[in-house]
C-alpha cells in the first residue's frame, strides 16, 4: 500500500505508506477524496497547484477477473470541477502488482521540459528526462519506449493534444498488445498531465508485490463465483465477446435515442452501416479480430481489432461511444472513416467523445457539412498540427460553440453528453445534469430500466422514478469505480448473490466486516467529496441543468423534450 509522490517542480520523488485517512480506498474513492482534500478548488487546472493522481481500483491485482481499472483524478480543465476518468488496459494490474496504491503528481516542470516517470519491477520510481519524446504521437512514442525500455512495461501517456494542454486531451494507456488505444478520455486530464511536463508513465508489468489479502481463500471463493456469473450472463458471456459495446448501436438507434447530426434527430438513417452486427461481419471478412482481450485479467474480451480492406491494423477497440460520436453525431455512415478517426484520436491523445461532439457542433454551425468524413479527419489532424482551429477543436464543444457563436452545444458542466439522448431516456437527463463529472454516461447509466424487460420498468418519456433511478445508480457506480470492477463485468453483480460476493471480497481483502451499508457509504463518500469540491469551485444548483436545446427542441422520431424539472434535479442529491 505505497503512495508515490512526484514533485515536478523540484523533480523529487518520495515513496511513503498510504496515509491512514485513505486506508481501504482505491480507484475513484481515492482519487476524488485526495483531490478534494489537497487541491485548492479555485486553482488553475493547468497550474502547479493542481494534482494529478493515478490509482488502481481496490480490487486491481487481486484474483478477481476484470479489475485492471485505473482511475485518474484532478481538477478538470474542461469542466472546472473535480474529475475522475477511468481506463482499462494493463496499467492498473501492473501498479497493483507492484504494491502501488497511488501515484500523486504535484507541482509543474518549467515550460519546455518533458519527463518520463519510470517504475521498475521492484517498484522503484525514477524521473527520466524525455525531451527526445516531445510532440510524439502515442503509437510512435510507445514504439520508441519499447525500444528503449523493453516490451514488459505498461505505458500510460499523452499525445500532442495533451502537450498543448487542450481541454479534450486524453490520457492513453496500452492494451494487452501494447497499443496505446485505451483512453482515460473524459475531462481533459491529458492536458493536466501535459501541464505537469509529464509525457508518460512506464510501469513494469513484472511486479510481484501485490497487497496481501486478509483471507485469501474467502477472496478466491467469492471471486470464482463472481467470474462464473459473468461468464454465464447473456450480455457479458456471449454478446460482448461477439460484437463488443457496438452491439448498442442498433438498439439505441431503434428507440430513437441515438443523437444524430448534433442531436437534431434521435435516429440515424445509416445506423445499419455502423452497427455492431455490421462491424463484426466486416472485421471477420477482413481477417481482423473480434473477441479480443484488451485488458489484463479480462474474461469478457469485448475488445476488437479493426483492420482495413487489406487486413492491416487500423485501430483497437472500436466502441459504441466512438461509433456514435464519429458516426451518427456527425452524420457519418462510413465505418472505415470512424475507425480512422478513432485511431487518430488515440494517436493524438484526444477524447473521442468530446472531439466527435466538437466536430458535430462545428458542422451544425455550418463550418462543414454533416456526413463529410474527410472534413472530420482534417479537423482532427489540425489538432495535431497545432493550428488555431485545431486548438479550438481540441478544446472541445464549448470552445467550438464560442468560436462560431453557436448555442446548440450539448454539454453539461462543459463536458459533452454521450451516446444516449436524454429526451428519449429521461433518466439520462438526470445523470448528465447532476453528475459531478458533467455529461457522463458511465456515472449513472439508467438505460436498462427505461428499455429492457420489453419496454422498460420506467416510462422513459416521463419524469416518474427517474431521479431515484439515477441517484441510486450514481451512488452504486461511485462504489464500482472505486473497487475497480469493469463496467461490463457488473453482470456478476446482477446474478443471485452477486453483490454479496463483492462485499465478501472487500472484507476478505481488508479483514474488516463489509456489507450493503458500507457499499452505500463508499459511494456516498465519493459523491460527497466530489460535490464539496465542485461547490468550492463555484458550482451551484443552477449548474445541474441541461442546455436549453434539450428542454425546447422535440427530438424526432418521438418528438419529446426533457421533462425533469429544476426542482427534481435539485432533489437528486441532498448533500
Amino acid at each position: 500500500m505505497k503512495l508515490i509522490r512526484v514533485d515536478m517542480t523540484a523533480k523529487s520523488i518520495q515513496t511513503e505508506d498510504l496515509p491512514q485517512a485513505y486506508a481501504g480506498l482505491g480507484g475513484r474513492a481515492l482519487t476524488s477524496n485526495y483531490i478534494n482534500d489537497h487541491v485548492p478548488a479555485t486553482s488553475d487546472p493547468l497550474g502547479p497547484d493542481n494534482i494529478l493522481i493515478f490509482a488502481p481500483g481496490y480490487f486491481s491485482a487481486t484474483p478477481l477477473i476484470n479489475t485492471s481499472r485505473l482511475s485518474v483524478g484532478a481538477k478538470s480543465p474542461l469542466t472546472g470541477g473535480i474529475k475522475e476518468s477511468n481506463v482499462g488496459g494493463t496499467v492498473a494490474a501492473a501498479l497493483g502488482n507492484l504494491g502501488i496504491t497511488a501515484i500523486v503528481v504535484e507541482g509543474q516542470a518549467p515550460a519546455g521540459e518533458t519527463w518520463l516517470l519510470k517504475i521498475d519491477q521492484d517498484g522503484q520510481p525514477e524521473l527520466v528526462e524525455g525531451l527526445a519524446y516531445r510532440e510524439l504521437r502515442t503509437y510512435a512514442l510507445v514504439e520508441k519506449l519499447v525500444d528503449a525500455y523493453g516490451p514488459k512495461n505498461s505505458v500510460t501517456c499523452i499525445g500532442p493534444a495533451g502537450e498543448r494542454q487542450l481541454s479534450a486531451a486524453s490520457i492513453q494507456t496500452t492494451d494487452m498488445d501494447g497499443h496505446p488505444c485505451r483512453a482515460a478520455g473524459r475531462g481533459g486530464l491529458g492536458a493536466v498531465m501535459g501541464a505537469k511536463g509529464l509525457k508518460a508513465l512506464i510501469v513494469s508489468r513484472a511486479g510481484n508485490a501485490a497487497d496481501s489479502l486478509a483471507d485469501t481463500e474467502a477472496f478466491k471463493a467469492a471471486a470464482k463465483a463472481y467470474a462464473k456469473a459473468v461468464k454465464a450472463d447473456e450480455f457479458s458471456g456471449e454478446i460482448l465477446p461477439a460484437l463488443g459495446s457496438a452491439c448498442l448501436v442498433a438498439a439505441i438507434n431503434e428507440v430513437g435515442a441515438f443523437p444524430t447530426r448534433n442531436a437534431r434527430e434521435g435516429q440515424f438513417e445509416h445506423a445499419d452501416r455502423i452497427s455492431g452486427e455490421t462491424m463484426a461481419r466486416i472485421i471477420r471478412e477482413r481477417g481482423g479480430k473480434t473477441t479480443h482481450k484488451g485488458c489484463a485479467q479480462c474474461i469478457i474480451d469485448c475488445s476488437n481489432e479493426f483492420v482495413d480492406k487489406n487486413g492491416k491494423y487500423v485501430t483497437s477497440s472500436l466502441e459504441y461511444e466512438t461509433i456514435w460520436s464519429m458516426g451518427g453525431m456527425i452524420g457519418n455512415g462510413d465505418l472505415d472513416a470512424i475507425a480512422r478517426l478513432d485511431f487518430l484520436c488515440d494517436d493524438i491523445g484526444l477524447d473521442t467523445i468530446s472531439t466527435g461532439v466538437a466536430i458535430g457542433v462545428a458542422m451544425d454551425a455550418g463550418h462543414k457539412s454533416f456526413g463529410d468524413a474527410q472534413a472530420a479527419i482534417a479537423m482532427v489532424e489540425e489538432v495535431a498540427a497545432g493550428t488555431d482551429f485545431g486548438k479550438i477543436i481540441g478544446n472541445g464543444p464549448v470552445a467550438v460553440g464560442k468560436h462560431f457563436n453557436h448555442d446548440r452545444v450539448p454539454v453539461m458542466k462543459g463536458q459533452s453528453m454521450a451516446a444516449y439522448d436524454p429526451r428519449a431516456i429521461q433518466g439520462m437527463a438526470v445523470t448528465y445534469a447532476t453528475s459531478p463529472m458533467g455529461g457522463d454516461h458511465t456515472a449513472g447509466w439508467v438505460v436498462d430500466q427505461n428499455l429492457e424487460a420489453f419496454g422498460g420498468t420506467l416510462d422513459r418519456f416521463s419524469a416518474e422514478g427517474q431521479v431515484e433511478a439515477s441517484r441510486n445508480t450514481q451512488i452504486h457506480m461511485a462504489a464500482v469505480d472505486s473497487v475497480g470492477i469493469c463496467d461490463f463485468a457488473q453482470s456478476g453483480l446482477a446474478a443471485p448473490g452477486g453483490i454479496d460476493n463483492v462485499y465478501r471480497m472487500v472484507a476478505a481483502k481488508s479483514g474488516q466486516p463489509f456489507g450493503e451499508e458500507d457499499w452505500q457509504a463508499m459511494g456516498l463518500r465519493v459523491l460527497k467529496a466530489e460535490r464539496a469540491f465542485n461547490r468550492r469551485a463555484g458550482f451551484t444548483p443552477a449548474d445541474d441543468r441541461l442546455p436549453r436545446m434539450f428542454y425546447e427542441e422535440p427530438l424526432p422520431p418521438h418528438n419529446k423534450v426533457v421533462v425533469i424539472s429544476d426542482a427534481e434535479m435539485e432533489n437528486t442529491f441532498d448533500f
Partner: protein
Amino acid sequence: MQVRVKLYGTLGKGVAGYDHPSGLTVEVNDGATVVELLAQLGIPLKKIGMVSLDGRLAGKTAALRPGMMVKVFHPIFGG
C-alpha cells in the same frame, strides 16, 4: 399472416437460415403476439431485452399485424 423479423446481437445464431442483412419472413397465426412469435422462433425470453414493432417498443403480449417489421434485441448494458 407474415411478419418480417430482424434478430440482433447473437440471437440469429440459433435460428436456421437467418441472415442478418436480409432478415427473415415468418408465417404466424392471425392475431399472434410477440411471445408467440418468439416461441415459434425458439428464442427463450431470457435472451430478450426488448422488441420493437414497426419502430415502437412493444410488450410481450402486443399483437402482430400483417407485414410488420419485428426487431428483436438482446439485453443491453452500457456503455
